[in-house]
């Protein structure tokens, strides 16, 4: 059967688990380090050493990480990128990276706009200016680390993006070339931004993967396959993520939602991941995180790729309670020094919950809390905490009536047994490792979004072509061919447009080897 290792990098802790089939055979927590990689490797070494002789049974390693996001935040060690936007005479009104923060914008060293692109019907706006692409190849040769190409309505017709890439290759450009139709959906600026962000962090992931491989090989584990958690709650192979690292930025958040499903078997629910400083509230939709329908900003840049719909409230285990005011400050991982139950002098959400829910944690003495605060005061605070969680549930559910709620994460023990809006509250066993388990047990996935005019293409043929495309992508991401199946087809009418214009999204998942 083999053993799978899952590692999830959180803001304070890096969690690692080892699973055989679906049973947890080892688990570990280490502190997250500033550069993330060090903590990740500590966690990896530690969990492998816990396995002892059985380490040779490890078949795969799944990682949920915010490496990409961190690198963009710090704006360090990024690639030099050329962006080619195809669409002139349209598109000139807002040049690429127009509203970017300067620290990131300076890495985009070449910006070109070229004639070409398509209409929403798939017809050409104008012919692609192939001569200009050849000139660009001469100009950027040996001067950039990656190239991003975006063409207007490439989600309807990707010909110009592909043709431009071919020309660059013919002219000897050997760096990675990223095409926007493989990154995001409708919305030129948002898709272009996501494509450039992806190009900026390619090397970060190349380095990370090399480092992981050398650690594994130093332990005699050359054949272990590496996968990364993606934003949509699936995983993809290292080879795929080398080209599409931007798909991992929300991996850790999605993992906890996926983990909630895998630990409970409940396919549709509101998931509350209670950490040290915040509660992330998401929604399980058929076993996967529900995706956000609006533009998501990453480091101040608008993008539109698939991200989980998450609502975050500043209430976690370490949240500081001060004169009826709950948070937003938190003691974070210092809880076990500073919380009153541990002999400290700061009242935290965990202190309050231990008294009201009548539980205790290692080395804690909740009686210390009652020496300082009245039971009446504490229950009033807890009522207010409960109301914050209830409001979040209410905001995230999409229809009237009560929903099932799954609580996971280190702070899930604080969640009340009953809440308004919740038909049932489930805190599964191993809830504190939900994110790492989520990464380990999930499937390989791929999503493709295109728009069609059903007057120019038959609906069945359109959807079939999209499914084929998504399947190919899933196989590239590491799925075993005959296990890939369609998980979701979503059709959305586009208002104001005739010709029966629709946006279609297909998502497929499959097993990995």
């Amino acid at each position, binding site marked *: 059967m083999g053993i799978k290792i899952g590692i999830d990098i959180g803001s304070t802790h890096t969690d690692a688990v080892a699973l055989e089939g679906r049973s947890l055979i080892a688990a570990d927590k280490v502190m997250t380090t500033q550069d993330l990689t060090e903590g990740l490797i500590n966690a990896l070494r530690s969990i492998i050493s816990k396995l002892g002789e059985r380490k040779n049974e490890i078949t795969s390693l799944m990682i949920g990480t915010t490496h990409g996001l961190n690198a963009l935040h710090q704006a360090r060690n990024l690639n030099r990128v050329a962006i080619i936007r195809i669409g002139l005479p*349209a598109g000139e009104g*807002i040049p690429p990276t127009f509203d970017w923060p300067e620290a990131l914008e300076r890495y985009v060293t070449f910006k070109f706009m070229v004639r070409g692109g398509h209409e929403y019907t798939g017809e050409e706006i104008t012919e692609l200016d192939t001569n200009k692409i050849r000139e660009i190849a001469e100009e950027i040769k040996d001067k950039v680390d990656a190239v991003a190409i975006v063409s207007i309505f490439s989600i309807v017709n990707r010909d110009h993006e592909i043709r431009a890439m071919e020309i660059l290759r013919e002219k000897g450009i050997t760096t990675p070339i990223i095409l926007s139709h493989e990154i995001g959906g409708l919305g030129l600026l948002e898709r272009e931004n996501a494509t450039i962000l992806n190009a900026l962090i390619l090397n970060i992931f190349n380095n990370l993967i090399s480092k992981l491989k050398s650690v594994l090989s130093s332990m005699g584990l050359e054949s272990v396959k590496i996968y990364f958690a993606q934003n949509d709650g699936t995983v993809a192979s290292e080879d795929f993520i080398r080209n599409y690292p931007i798909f991992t930025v929300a991996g850790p958040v999605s993992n906890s939602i996926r983990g909630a499903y895998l630990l409970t078997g409940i396919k549709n629910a509101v998931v509350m991941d209670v950490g040290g400083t915040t509660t992330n509230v998401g929604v399980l939709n058929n076993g996967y995180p529900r995706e956000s329908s609006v533009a998501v900003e990453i480091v101040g840049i608008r993008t539109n790729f698939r991200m989980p719909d998450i609502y975050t409230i500043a209430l976690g285990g370490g949240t500081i309670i001060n004169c009826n005011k709950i948070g937003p400050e938190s003691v974070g991982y210092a809880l076990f020094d500073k919380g009153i139950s541990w002999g400290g002098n700061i009242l935290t959400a965990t202190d309050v919950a231990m008294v009201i829910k009548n539980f205790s944690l290692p080395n804690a003495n909740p009686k210390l809390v009652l020496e300082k605060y009245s039971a009446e005061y504490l229950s009033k605070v807890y009522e207010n905490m409960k109301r914050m969680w209830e409001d979040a549930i209410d*905001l995230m559910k999409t229809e009237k009536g009560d929903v099932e709620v799954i609580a996971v994460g280190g702070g899930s023990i604080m969640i009340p047994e009953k809440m308004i809006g919740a038909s049932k509250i489930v805190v599964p066993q191993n809830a504190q490792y939900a994110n790492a388990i989520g990464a380990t047990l999930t499937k390989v996935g791929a999503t493709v979004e295109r728009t069609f005019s059903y007057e120019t293409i038959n609906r069945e043929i359109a959807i079939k072509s999209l499914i084929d495309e998504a399947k190919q992508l899933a196989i590239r991401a590491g799925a075993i061919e005959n296990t890939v199946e369609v998980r979701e087809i979503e059709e959305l009418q586009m208002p*104001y447009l005739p010709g029966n214009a629709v946006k279609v999204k297909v998502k497929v998942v499959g097993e990995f080897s």
Partner: protein
Amino acid sequence: METYYIRINDVDNLTTGASFLGSGGGGDPYIGGLMLKRELKSKGELEIIRRPKSNKAFVLGSAMMGAPIVMIEKIPSSSEAKKALEIYSYVMNKLIDYITPLEIGGVNSTIPLITSAKTGIPIVDGDGMGRAFPELQMTTFYFYGVSPSPMVIFDERGNTSVIQGIDGYWTEKIARIITVRFGGSAYIALYGMNMEDYLKNAVLDTLTLALEIGELLNDKKLDQVLDKLKAEILFKGKVIDVYRKVEKGFSKGYVVIEGIESYYNKTLQIDFQNEFLIARTNNEILVTVPDLIVVLDLFNQKPITTDRLKYGQKVIVIGVPANEKLRTEEALKYIGPKAFGYNIEYIPIDKRL
């Protein structure tokens, strides 16, 4: 002649105010706002003329037409609307003295300013709707006798057509078909008139109004917005149902809001067709078109467009009296509840509440 200037830092206020006046429709002015910022980055400032004196001066409307969803993908070159204007001038052998917006709600609050920046032709502070409406003939210019034709329609490639419709409806119908053929978005120059007619027919000072509303909202000073517009809070609550369908190219539907605070135990339904049209409780109509119904996020007080409504949003609903020029018998024929298929009499919000 009273004038003032718009600078790059004013653009976010303008787009917020334009979203408010869009009454749920008009398209997201995000793209238009960025294009305008780009113009102002190089130009510094743009002059807005509040009260031109010359009665004989020639005014022309400038706008984008089509699907905002196309515009977020096929971003304009930003010269299209300028070209449409130049072709109008050439074909009609007219010098254009001033540019006017046709609507102040949504993306079309920004396009004429970009045209003004590109051509150097000053822009007048007014428009033909005082809000947003979906069709070309739904302007005060048309209600009071100015024809949209001749109209120039232009695409980014340079394709041009001049439309001479027999009335506003035909002009709209023909232009709509051409827009689709141009790829779903086009740029137009229309409603040529002299300044005397403009000052008589336009809803005046609406650029200033959008800027002021936007500034107040961005500072979270909703009370002052209400005072300024003589507007009323209709309802506070949570969205519990959103129904949508696409019909004849329009996004139609309704939203149901469950009351909180002093509205507890009540529900409000708002019907929309691109814009919000009718707001009612179980047994009472509160506001109808052309008065404005505006839905704001309860927490950040930003306007929510009809396509962004979703379950769980906490909102505050506001009713705003429309400009008097939208409330006359002539105007109501085109933009009253009956024009949108409702068998409801228009009673001004100030008389209903």
